[in-house]
């Protein structure tokens, strides 16, 4: 009995770690296409992007002077970035059954194409692109954004 409760305790203690590192359960999308230098900053780590790399909420994606990248997120959002561009996937929640829907992208600079997905369709007010100048709200559409 004691060993069972110890086991439960150990499992409970390990759970947060699984969530933090278990990219299998927490990924929000993938890097689908890529050329040149592209890096992902996750917490304090810098990761060289490669096709099929799994993205997480909070990831910062940055292309170099010769870099470009295409991302597909779980809700069908397609984002592609040209040279010298930088965005952050600030918040991504796609759990319709729990009524948890939210997608906030931050654009720092560059040229970016957005094809919005199911979050924008199901909860139009919850899909937003923040920029240094203004906030762009999307209701299911193709948006092109250039930020100097």
């Amino acid at each position, binding site marked *: 009995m004691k060993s069972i409760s110890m086991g439960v305790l150990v499992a409970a203690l390990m759970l947060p770690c699984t969530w933090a590192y278990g990219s299998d359960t927490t990924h929000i999308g993938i890097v689908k296409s890529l050329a040149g230098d592209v890096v992902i900053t996750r917490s304090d780590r810098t990761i060289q992007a490669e096709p099929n790399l799994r993205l997480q909420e909070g990831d910062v994606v940055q292309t170099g002077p010769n870099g470009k990248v295409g991302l597909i997120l779980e809700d069908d959002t397609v984002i592609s970035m040209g040279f010298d561009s930088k965005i952050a996937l600030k918040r991504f929640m796609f759990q319709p059954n729990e009524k948890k829907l939210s997608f906030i992208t931050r654009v720092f600079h560059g040229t970016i*194409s957005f094809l919005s997905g199911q979050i924008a369709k199901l909860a139009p007010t919850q899909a937003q692109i923040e920029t240094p100048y203004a906030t762009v709200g999307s209701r*299911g559409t193709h948006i092109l954004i250039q930020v100097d």
Partner: protein
Amino acid sequence: MNILVRFALLLLLVTLTSGCAKKMLVALVPDPDGKIGSISVESAAGSVTIDTSYQATTIGDPQKMPSTPAPVAKKKLDKIFKEALSIQPEQPLHFLLYFQEGTELTSESMKLLPDIIASIKQRNSTDISVVGHTDTLGSKEYNTALSTTRALAVRTLLVTQGAESNAIRTTSHGKENPLIPTGDNVSEPRNRRVEVVVR
């Protein structure tokens, strides 16, 4: 005046008039399927709405209003966004599967499985979702459980036919993401489905 000083002043002038004129451009273009959506662009001073394709607004100061949306040439956008658009991935593919009863697929849906496997291979996809959906009839618990069981059954079928198990994630959206929107407690067979999304 020293020629070097003159040159420095000229350089400063060029920088001030071009480099410092930092701003943002936001344009609306048609979706790949031709549909036109709508966007709002909101600064600290107010917001503008664009709901016509090839219209754009610009803003250079977050304390000012975005410019009144105006037509922008497709050619100009194609030039500015050339690199971004050149790397744009294909949109995810959705396959709709239906059931006779329990977890048994209809024969039409069974016939789709080879197409799904083929598209996974063709796209070299390592990120596949299998999502259970229900109509609005019945309790949330029952519907969530049934649609999850159906999604797991489809996952098993796909793995049996050659899909990589760790590339597939199964989930249920219950009645909250219907194909055909209805009121509550409505039987709608088209909503009782499993969608396979291949990215």
